[in-house]
């Protein structure tokens, strides 16, 4: 028998399904263990240790960092963060759904339009956010135009406001809403809408009774993909919101950098994670209940 080494290896794996699964998924599993789970454990440890005088931690055990979240100030940061993320998600949904719908029905233009949606990813988010500063600041493009045409007498303060943060967040996360909704609309059989139409359904009824329910998995995925990262975002509020309105992401960042309070930063991260987990679990519950109702 003429058996090459390649064939021998393949045969060895073929005979052992368990090892084959490990061979396929193993590298990624090891990677995640090393670079996600272990640092996460270290953070958890850090969050319950006393703060070191010059940064870092000292040996010991304490819940005081978590206790600080009872403070109104931190609670309000947490609340504002959730609010911003919620509003961002809602705006992305309202603007992204029609876009996804148009692309899904655009026939031969489909691929080109999808390309346009992902085009912003070709440059870094940081660069794009900086570019927005040039648009929004008092001497920026928008104010300059408005002044030029005499629509305003003096520049409107746009940069370093809560609105600027929302604009930045929506801009940054819109593609993450469009893509999953597009994917679920793309799979839909459009003759269903014709069937509904013959059965007497007007356009609004066709959307509410057929299109929307069938695209809900995409809507759910899009909302998760927008809501969760906006909860943890810090770059946008840092650059566009100024120091006036910090989000929990900025709090974490500050604690690890200028404030040199690693344990509190770690604790804030875990609080954020708990909020996300609870949110996802509630969502899952609602969806399970929905499926059972059907």
């Amino acid at each position: 028998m003429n058996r090459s080494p390649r064939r021998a290896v393949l045969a060895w794996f073929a005979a052992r399904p368990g090892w084959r699964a490990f061979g396929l998924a193993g590298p990624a599993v090891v990677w995640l263990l090393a670079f996600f789970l272990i640092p996460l454990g270290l953070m958890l440890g850090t969050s319950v240790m006393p703060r070191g005088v010059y940064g870092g931690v000292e040996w010991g055990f304490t819940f005081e960092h978590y206790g600080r979240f009872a403070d109104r100030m931190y609670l309000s940061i947490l609340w504002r963060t959730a609010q911003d993320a919620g509003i961002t998600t809602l705006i992305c949904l309202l603007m992204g759904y029609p876009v996804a719908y148009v692309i899904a029905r655009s026939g031969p233009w489909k691929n080109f339009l999808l390309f346009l949606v992902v085009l912003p990813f070709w440059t870094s988010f940081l660069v794009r956010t900086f570019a927005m500063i040039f648009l929004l600041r008092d001497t920026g493009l928008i104010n300059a135009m408005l002044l030029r045409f005499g629509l305003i007498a003096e520049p409107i303060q746009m940069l370093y406001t809560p609105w600027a943060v929302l604009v930045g967040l929506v801009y940054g996360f819109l593609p993450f809403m469009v893509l999953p909704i597009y994917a679920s609309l793309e799979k839909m059989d459009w003759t269903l809408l014709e069937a509904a139409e013959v059965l007497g359904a007007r356009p609004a009824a066709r959307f509410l009774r057929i299109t929307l329910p069938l695209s809900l998995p995409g809507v759910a995925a899009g909302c998760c993909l927008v809501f969760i990262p906006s909860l943890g975002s810090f770059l946008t509020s840092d650059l566009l919101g100024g120091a006036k309105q910090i989000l929990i992401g900025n709090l974490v960042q500050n604690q690890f950098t200028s404030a040199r309070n690693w344990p509190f930063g770690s604790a804030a991260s875990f609080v954020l994670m708990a909020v996300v987990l609870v949110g996802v679990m509630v969502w899952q519950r609602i969806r399970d209940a929905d499926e059972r109702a059907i």
Partner: protein
Amino acid sequence: MDDVVEFVRVSKTFAAYRAVDNISFEVRRGEFFSILGPSGCGKTTTLRLLAGFEQPDADGGEVRLLGERVNERRPYERQIAMVFQSYALFPHLSVERNVAFGLEMRAVSASDVPKRVAAALELVRLDPGVFGRRMPAQLSGGQRQRVALARALVLEPALLLLDEPLGAIDLKLRKEMQFELKQLNRQLGTTFVYVTHDQEEALTMSDRIAVMSNSRIAQLGSPAEIYENPRTPFVARFIGESNFLEGTAVEPDGEGWLVVDDGGHRWHLPAGPGVAGGRRVSVAVRPEWLDLFRPGETPAGENVLPGIVRDVVYLGETLHVVVRVAPERDLTVALRNEGQLARPLPWARGDAVHLGWLPGDSQVLEAD
């Protein structure tokens, strides 16, 4: 007013392509009307014009439903029902909710809905208790077909459109459904317009058939008229099988004409439109109307063509004998199989035979 549907010189053009070209027909109340043709002949566009998914060209004639012009009316304003080729059941709704959909859209009172849904499911022989709560994905193809039918019939429409609804199910079930559809059509008195490319399906179920070819109606008539008296070579070829002969009418002969065909043989044709002295004639003869004889044994009064047996094809119910006649033309003769083991055919490949047929069984064709 007993025409449910009227097409008056209707045309529909997509970009530069004329999908439906100046067609006119009526569908009578309670009729099972089929539109039959190969793919791309315009039959689906015709159905979509009827449903309201397409509108005729601006100067493209008139589509009338129950006596009213409906050219611009949307499908949801037309009070019709339709069964789609892919069934188009709503995958996120149970069987009951699928069937109830049209009733809800037409604001039927909520207390009547369950009763009518159950009645519609029973009509298509699905037990509402067993199937009502199932999702479309949990049904077989045949069951989905029935749900689609129930969803349409529950509205008690004046007109039911069916777009090749039996294409995707297996042969045995298809035969059953053909029978059931015909039953429903009779029992409910609903007018059916049925689009298909399957000639056998159309012949089995229809009261009348419109055969379409190249965006026009090639012939419209009862199944017997279409099969026994096809008007053009296309119809003769598309519905059943046919043998084609060409020749020239030379002189009147008793009640008909004497024809000399392109192989130099002489035979008779009954008088009729399109046959005149010196005119070229194109004639179709169905395989089952031809018979085989030993040379010289053809009965008096039948046309005779000499030939050589090229092949004998065993089909079970029938046998096809392919005979080569001058000039280089193969004709098929269908013979009833009387048992090849007990009484084998007396013909074998290479035998000289005479083909015989009654002059009245020849169908004179117009050009396509």
